[in-house]
């Protein structure tokens, strides 16, 4: 299945969901004063946010919206 066939909206949904999960975990890691909070931030929260950014950027690169004149 080609990436362009998946559709930008699904990409945006996945990217947003990853982003929200990562951001919420980042808040938890900032409020929790413990050495494990760094592990939570670096290996879970930042990874989810980073993945969300990558999914969003992939959607910009691979999902091609046809020009307005060619839409049927």
């Amino acid at each position: 299945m080609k990436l362009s066939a998946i559709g930008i909206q699904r990409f945006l949904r996945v990217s947003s969901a990853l982003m929200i999960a990562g951001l919420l975990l980042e808040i938890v890691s900032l409020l929790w004063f413990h050495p494990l909070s760094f592990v939570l931030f670096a290996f879970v929260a930042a990874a989810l946010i980073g993945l969300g950014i990558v999914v969003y950027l992939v959607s910009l690169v691979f999902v091609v919206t046809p020009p307005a004149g060619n839409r049927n």
Partner: protein
Amino acid sequence: MIGILIAQIVVSAVLASIFLIRPSVTTGAAWKILAFIGLCVLPALCIVGGMNTHMQRSEQRRFCVSCHAMVPYGQSLYVDDPTHLPAQHFQNHRVPPDMACFACHADYTIYGPLKDKMRGLTRIYMQYVSSPPNPIRIEGGYKNHQCLHCHAGARSFEENPVHSAIMDSLTSEQMSCLTSGCHDTAHDVANLNHAKFWKATQ
């Protein structure tokens, strides 16, 4: 500072939730720009801000002693004994009291903070997955350059005849400040039960 970062994270999460609920709004040019800011720029800034906050936090004494294995080392800073090296540095503010651990144990080199973080992660692994060594030892021993980072060039240190006589041995690490019989009481957590403690007046 942490409040600003949390506000930034909340704004990013609100924008992301808009695109989660209604991704179709991105058909407009203005929303496309907003999507780029909300799903790329702001989250990237949140990662940078979070990393910076966590790195600064890990320099605090409170952070170090929040780990169970480090509690006795934190207590040893309050030992009422003038020969107890870390306690004297802490109690007389020769190091910033809220960053006492970092001041003496940081690796003052260009990649030092990164190496320190990697060592910290190794210790977290030992604490939660394998088992921490008992007693805890510094890998490779305590280096003189960590003492000399502050003391080198200081008048009272340089003019001390004992120090000036062995300065070359100290700077070349041939003779240790701690294990050569001069300043050999560091932390000494094994004898904390018999120690007298200093109570800081508020």
